[in-house]
């Protein structure tokens, strides 16, 4: 291994141990997907129930999985990995979802999964080192993205609060977060300025939601009591419908929880694997995280992914309980935990323990969420806010990268490609359009350089 080259922080060559980790984990995730025990794509999970119950064929389910994942693999996973040199779940786990379901036999799944892992590690190594040697180094330019992403991501709880609880509370939250950022910069210059603000923002949102749900439940109970005391003819429509309609959901949920619990050892192995991958620091779990991991900011990456997870817990829990298939990364808490682990062995043990806890608690989490509609709303608002904040950050960061690569011409090409994608009805997912445009723009600028039509900005 050419360890001299690997010393620079932007150049992430994978070591043999890291390569083997990725290949082994891909084999495992493909096997688990083949068994229909877990899939990464939250969109595919609801369709797994029909497959598990034999009402849908393997090939039909593969088609669903491919249709829902392909855009994210080529539009989001691949450009993100190329621009950061860091692997991400869309590139690693979405293909293993598909390959696992596709495999006609149990033993073929891990082979296909492992083969994909090999393609990823060797392909990325190759593409990454070639790109860094080009006259216009667009991979280093893409590091520009981390500042807007980190700082705008800080704001996502504020956006969610505004959407769910209105302008006044949103405005107050914005002022509080800004004050906390300024204060953190002044008092603790060594820690990331947004970390405390983000924590306070997320906790405030959850607090508002829990408070609203509890108040609503109290109100419902009081009304029901009043209605029964008055001896009215209709005993409360909402309650009546809820009572006899709750059964199908409860029985479906408990059957799924039981199915997942039966495979607890396999899930513990999966948790260990994902946590070890996160610990290896060649993998970032969220949209923002790859850039932070690439810079070596592991503590920041852990914070960002930890808060991001709150947007996904209710979604993953309810789809898992409804379908009987869990998430490949569980509630995604193994990512931040993994980044912070001191070595792979501790990461494996802790990852296994986290997954065991998650699978065992799934039933209880589903029951609690069933009673907290505002909290489930919050998670949807959080995910939507993450999308909004990152959308602007990634676009702005991409234009900054374009400026570093090629000045005005760079901005014209990258911004132009983004606008073109918009006007064509977004063939590339919006989130990935700008980074993908930077890569295309980088290649184009290199061609122009080769044709003697462009002089690189730096030396």
């Amino acid at each position: 291994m050419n360890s001299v080259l690997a010393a620079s922080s932007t150049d992430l060559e994978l070591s043999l141990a890291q390569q083997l980790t990725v290949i082994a984990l891909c084999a495992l995730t493909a096997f688990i997907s083949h068994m229909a025990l877990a899939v990464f794509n939250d969109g595919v999970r609801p369709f797994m129930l029909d497959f598990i119950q034999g009402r849908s064929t393997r090939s039909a389910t593969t088609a669903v999985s491919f249709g829902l994942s392909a855009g994210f693999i080529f539009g989001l996973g691949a450009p993100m990995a190329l621009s950061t040199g860091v692997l991400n779940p869309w590139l690693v786990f979405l293909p293993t979802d598909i390959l696992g379901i596709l495999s006609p036999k149990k033993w073929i799944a891990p082979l296909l999964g492992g083969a994909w892992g090999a393609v990823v590690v060797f392909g990325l190594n190759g593409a990454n080192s070639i790109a860094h040697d080009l006259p216009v180094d667009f991979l280093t330019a893409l590091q520009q993205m981390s500042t807007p992403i980190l700082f705008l991501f800080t704001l996502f709880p504020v956006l969610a609060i505004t959407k769910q609880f209105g302008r006044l509370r949103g405005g107050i939250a914005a002022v509080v977060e800004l004050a906390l950022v300024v204060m953190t910069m002044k008092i603790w210059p060594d820690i990331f300025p947004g970390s405390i603000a983000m924590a306070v923002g997320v906790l405030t949102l959850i607090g508002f939601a829990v408070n609203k749900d509890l108040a609503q439940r109290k109100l419902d109970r009081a009304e029901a009591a009043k209605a029964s005391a008055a001896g009215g003819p209709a005993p409360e429509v909402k309650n009546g419908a809820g009572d006899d309609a709750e059964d199908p959901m409860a029985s479906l949920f408990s059957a799924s929880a039981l199915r997942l619990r039966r495979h607890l050892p396999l899930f513990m192995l999966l948790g260990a694997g994902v946590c070890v991958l996160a610990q290896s620091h060649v993998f970032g779990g969220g949209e923002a995280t790859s850039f932070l991991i690439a810079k070596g900011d592991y503590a920041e990456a852990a914070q960002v992914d930890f808060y991001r997870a709150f947007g996904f817990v209710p979604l993953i829990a309810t789809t898992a309980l409804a379908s009987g298939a869990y998430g490949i990364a569980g509630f995604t808490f193994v990512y931040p935990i993994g980044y912070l682990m001191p070595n792979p062995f501790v990461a494996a043990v802790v990852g296994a323990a986290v997954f065991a806890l998650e699978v065992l608690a799934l039933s209880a989490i589903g029951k609690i969420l069933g009673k907290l509609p505002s909290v489930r709303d919050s998670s949807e608002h959080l995910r939507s806010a993450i999308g909004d904040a990152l959308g602007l950050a990634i676009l702005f960061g991409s234009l900054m990268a374009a400026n570093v690569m090629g000045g005005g011409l760079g901005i014209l090409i990258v911004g132009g490609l983004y606008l073109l994608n918009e006007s064509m009805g977004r063939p590339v997912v919006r989130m990935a359009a700008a980074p993908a445009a930077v890569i295309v723009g980088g290649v184009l600028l290199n061609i122009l350089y080769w044709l003697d039509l462009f002089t690189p900005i730096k030396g």
Partner: protein
Amino acid sequence: MTKILTGGVGKAEVTETVKKLGLDGIEITVSNDMDAAMKLRGGQADYFLGTCHTGAGASLGVLVGLLGKPACHTFGRSVPTEDEVNALLSEGKKVFGFAIDQIDVIAPLMARAIAARG
């Protein structure tokens, strides 16, 4: 009055978009996957429009599990034509998922098709 419920990441935007059309005979309300599943089962609502980034996961959520796949359809990230939507409605599909960045096109299309059926 045909009752439509919305859910998923862009539920507020879908509701707003459809309300702005001012169509007669339909009522659209913000909901969520679990409540909507129960209401559709109980006949208290007729259709569900869900949105998320993939066009399927968060948007359909528990609905596929509780109502069965035959009642559900996801457009994924594709944009359907009016004929496709009408064909799906005639088949008896009640739950639809689509991508959040295509709300501006698909939500009006769905609402008009549903309203036209009366």
